[in-house]
């Protein structure tokens, strides 16, 4: 037990300087520069990011995702599904590097991109599993009071946000946790196997 705590602490401190894979544990603001405090984007929980460097209270990060043709303000988790990783404001001028481009099954073009941004050095974790466990716990403890909870793989990644939104007001799940639960459900949806 002690050993693992020590291990995670040492990893955490190391992560501040090295190129490390981290996950957002809550909804986080994205900034264009290290000294800017103007919120130009929002990063959703459980999003994977690479920490490049530490600048004061902020970290410079890279997010790899997909952008849909015609939608300039959203970075999605995978091609062809509306699992939002980051929403960007219309005036945002982030550095977005295009890696490749391909079409989904409906013929719509998706670009694979790397977005570089700054975010506060908080609410970041290496432990994606415990984020998912927390989300799953919230889901099962709140959604099985009135009816048996629907398994995450019962609905598609696109369906889950509206399903969840329709029901969440009847539960004690707080708004900030709602994003976490939605991300968990989307990323474990019926059409997400093997991705």
């Amino acid at each position, binding site marked *: 037990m002690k050993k693992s705590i020590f291990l995670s602490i040492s990893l955490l401190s190391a992560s501040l300087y090295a190129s490390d894979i981290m996950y957002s544990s809550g909804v986080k603001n994205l900034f264009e520069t290290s000294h800017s405090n103007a919120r130009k984007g929002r990063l959703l929980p459980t999003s994977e990011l690479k920490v490049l460097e530490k600048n004061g209270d902020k970290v410079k990060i890279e997010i790899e995702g997909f952008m849909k043709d*015609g*939608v300039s303000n959203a970075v999605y988790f995978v091609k062809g599904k*509306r699992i939002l990783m980051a929403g960007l404001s219309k005036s945002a001028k982030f550095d977005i590097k295009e890696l490749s481009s391909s079409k989904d099954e*409906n013929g719509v073009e998706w670009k694979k991109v790397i977005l570089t941004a700054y975010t506060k050095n908080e609410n970041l974790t290496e432990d994606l599993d415990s984020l998912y466990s927390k989300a799953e*716990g919230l889901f*099962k*403890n709140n959604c*099985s*009071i*009135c009816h*048996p*909870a*629907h*398994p995450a*793989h*019962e*609905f*598609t990644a*696109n*369906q*889950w*946000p*509206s*399903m969840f*939104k*329709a*029901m969440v*007001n*009847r*539960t*004690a799940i*707080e708004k900030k946790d709602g994003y976490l639960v939605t991300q968990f459900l989307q990323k474990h949806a019926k059409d997400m196997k093997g991705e």
Partner: protein
Amino acid sequence: MKNINQKRRGFLKVVALFATVPFIDAVTNRGELLAGTITKFSTKLVENGVVLTAAHWGMLKLTIKNGKVVKSEPYQKTSRIKNSLQYHTDDLVYAEDRIKYPMVRKSYLKDPNNPKPELRGNDEWVRVSYDEAIKLVAKELKKTRKEKGAKGVFAGSYGWKSSGSIHNCRVLLHRFMTATGGFTGTVGDYSTGASQVIMPHVLGTLEVYEQQTSWPVVLEHSKVVVIWGANPLATLKIAWTSTDENGFKYFEELKKSGKKIICIDPYKTETCDYLDAQWIAPNPNTDVAMMMGMIHTLLEAKKYDANFLDEYTEGFDKFKDYLYGKDDGIVKNAKWASKICGVDKKTINELANLFYDNRTMLMSGWGMQRAHHGEQPHWMMVTLASVLGQIGLPGGGFGLSYHYSNGGVPTAKSAIIGGITANVTPSKDEGGAAWLRNAAKYSFPVARIADALLNPGKTIDFNGKKITYPEIDFIYWVGGNPMVHHQDTNLLIKAWKKPRTIVVNEAFWTPTARMADIVMPTTTSYERNDITATGDYSNLNIVPMKQAVKKQYEARDDYQIFSDLAKEFGVLDKYTQNKTEMQWIEEFYTKAYEQAKKMNMPIPTFRDFWTKNQPITFDVPYENTQFVRYADFREDPILNPLGTPSGKIEIYSKTIEKMNYKDCKAYPSWLEPAEWVGMEKKTAEFALISPHPSHRLHSQLNNTSLRKEYAVANREPIWINTKDAKEKGIKSGDVVRVFNDRGQILVGAIVTDGLKQGIVKIEEGAWYDPMEKGKEGTLCKNGSANLLTKDIPTSELANGNSSNTALVNIEKYTKEAPSLSIFKQPN
């Protein structure tokens, strides 16, 4: 909390009458609930006074005299509409057919390994001690799990279990089964089996259980209100938690509003009468054709919103090709529709024009989707609404939940109480963890129960997946009555004889309890403490459900029964978390308390809340009174896409196209049902509809004195059209035999003009009362409609029930009518 509106204030005056409820006993309680547990809460009862509780049919004021319930009445009145269900609590508690003791079927008790299942329903009952019953259930459950695995145990259970957050028997059953090694469950429900599967493909969400455009918006903006296949005056008497009763308030306001109101239904509902609405009577199962006729009329008249279809929907062109008969050569115009639905062409045209020319809200019920091809009606209605182009506008579009749980009553800003869940870690040594990973694999659509029992190993199609039925050898049912709610009762009886063991927890000798092997007597919700919210959509109140009277006979709470069973499996601590009933209630309340504190709208401490025995009522923010469903989507379909693959309303679904089902195409379509009045070789003369009852919650309350107010010739009524009745020589008050090749029932005739010719109506939910006990095909003396309904899936897509697809014959019953055997003790 402070700004309770003026109207509500009037109703709240009554609270002063309520007795203060004891909270903590001076002497430590004897731990009645769980042996060895010390409770800090009082379990003292109010001997004389008024106690507040709640049921699905609302908050109830119970008058207690010398420890007995003597009077039951509504806690509040929100309108002049009477909720007939609220006055019969004493009938339930002191019912003649209460299950008094644990009972075991004689042959089962003699040899559980060879229990003669064919004798179910017609064997002797033997009283056993509670401890003996618990040990027997535990032993046999362990045996089945060992022999057949977790999937051999069916505990999907289903039904309108009593209100309350702790004594939620279905969840308690699932919690127990999860903790001890797993079970086969179900998906979906009987109410909206078809729609809840098709709507996610069309609108990306369930639709049927979601908040509606709020009533104040409807009252302000809608010019025409269409109530299509719904009877809210009957169905709003109840809600899944407990009704907030404000649906009635708004229907009263709708009546006064002077708006054009149209009821489309094969029978003239009490809602239609009450609202003095225009009555349009299509044939059952033909609404789809009628809607198609309307769409054709609108397209021809260029009365449609091309922009809406273009920007917000997907695949309308493909549907249009079908409508105009590109492949089959049949143009589905009003004339075509008229022949199918039996509503004249002129009326179809007029309605279509009326809807387009005025802001129109189409409020639909669910009866039309409880029919063969039940996926189609709401899909077609969404298509019609898309053509009209009013979706997302104030007071326009469609709503599938105004008749249910007070949909459209604005949502309060409220704190939410917790509730017991099935989320426990399964025990490793029972193989439970492995089961949990596979649990969903065995779950089948709920209305396929008879098919599953009869055909283990059979694989069915379901919404793009394949499901293989497990071999079920043990059934545990709580809080439900499948012998009444499932279609084709005789087929279910046959199926019911397959498993080795059937256990039922019940308060009453229901037809289902009578068909069990082991019956555990349970308390009614008036014999235990609990807590509930009211208003499934509004979250308006938190209500204490203070125990009103002592537990009757040897009745136990489901929580105790499952705790004691958990003990037999060595998982008592896990199951109860060492909490008593009151400790759970405190925990659930505290969840809301903490939330309210954070939201800066403090509510009383649990102690004050419980002691005062009054509900907490939350405020409704103005913005919630202005909610317009799909307004956000209409405003920005890119930023607020629907949850469908295209993000738009899918009138054509590529997902469904890929499934390649014969009985559900990729676009909404008219598919002839297996039985209907217009079919070529009719198997029987009349179409039977079996809507939600006006004076019951499905089968609940059939065993109360309320029955006297609606029964005809001491049995369930049948509504027959005047001309049809004359032809058959039937008068009001006659006993009528209704029959087809599936079953036969006796009912009492009500002859009326308020029903389309060729149609008969029998409300679902009368308790099955067989002439010859346990025998398939025998006459039901009390008139349960499901003896006659068809047990076929709506389609391979949803596998919902098809209860409104049935043809029957009727004849005057000339023999001496047998007296009822149900509603009393068996044997």
